[in-house]
């Protein structure tokens, strides 16, 4: 194998308007346009999408699973952010 591998792109698809784009998988392509075309042929052969985003995998910044506990810890002890934290007095409605 002497070829240098084409860059990897992550593919995100909006299945219909009103919904957000969702990760579908990845593909290799030489450039951005080819990535879009290949993503269409690979991931939307049955009209699964109305919009596609492709982004170089190397451009994605991700949180580290090893740090998950510490990273998301600040949200853990703030249960007062949830409406269920509050007791609604008997007889009060529409709250």
């Amino acid at each position: 194998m002497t070829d240098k591998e084409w860059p990897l792109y992550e593919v995100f698809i909006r299945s219909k308007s009103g919904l957000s784009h969702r990760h579908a998988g990845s593909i290799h392509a030489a450039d951005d346009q080819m990535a879009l075309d290949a993503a269409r042929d690979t991931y939307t052969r049955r009209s699964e999408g109305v919009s596609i985003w492709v982004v170089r995998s190397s451009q994605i910044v991700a949180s580290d699973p090893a740090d998950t506990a510490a990273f998301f810890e600040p949200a853990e002890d703030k249960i007062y952010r949830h409406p269920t934290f509050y007791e609604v007095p008997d007889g009060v409605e529409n709250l």
Partner: protein
Amino acid sequence: MYTQGLDQKGQSDKRDGLESAADRKAFQKRVDAEEKIEAKDWMPEAYRRTLIRQISQHAHSEIIGMQPEGNWLTRAPSLKRKAILLAKIQDEAGHGLYLYSAAETLGVSRDQMVGDLLSGKAKYSSIFNYPTLTWADIGAIGWLVDGAAIMNQIPLCRCSYGPYARAMVRICKEESFHQRQGFDILVELCKGTPEQKAMAQDALNRWWWPSLMMFGPSDAESKHSAQSMAWKIKRFSNDELRQKFIDVTVPQAEFLGLKVPDDECILDKQTGHYRHGEIDWQEFIEVLKGNGPCNKQRMEKRRNAHEDGRWVREAARAYAEKRAAKAA
């Protein structure tokens, strides 16, 4: 489709010894709780290796699997059948790509996997080393081979490794079209002339046993099943899936007015399952070793296709680099 759990040598690795028992235990606990494992999560090296091997073999099978069907593209009996077959073969390529991309999340490169296929180091499903001699074979592949694949793949949608499970969900949705189009071909042939019906029976005769072999060795012989089950990569044993396949397929053959080529295949009223005769495992071993009817032809075609495409890959890369340099 098509994971047979082949090529299971080299199970241990130096790195295995560096893993702490506590880490492994925590990992197993997550798996037992039906949590999905994602790409960057900690996982035992043996789990990673097992998945890379299984997913890449699966991907290679999809890619090689285009060849037996491609053989009939230019000779499909009508424009409708040709368009359908073309769409099915395109799906197989797509399945290969979903799977390669799932395997890449485990840290193996696409080039490495393709290189291993071309060098013969990596295996693909034994079924694709059989020839497609008549148009009825295209029907039999869809009905039996894709039918067996669906049996195998539906449980993989719940596999513990997230990216593999998600790829399988997508594949299973498409596989159902493959099976029905195959059955549809056979329905048509079986309603036709005696010659056409005989052609369908001949295809069933040749594809039945190799399809049963697709589920892999019997449970007694399948050494690594227990570990894969514990890791929830695998959910049912080879023999369980094979039995399920036989139970659903024999009545379909009866509907077609065809007979499976196994005199021992009768319904056991007590168990509610069909019995089956002894599978010729020697044939299976030979095909895996490279001595099947079409192994050489399949590999040669794949290698040539790869070489013939080299200038395209290089040209696309050169063009992209030139444009990037201009823009900078």
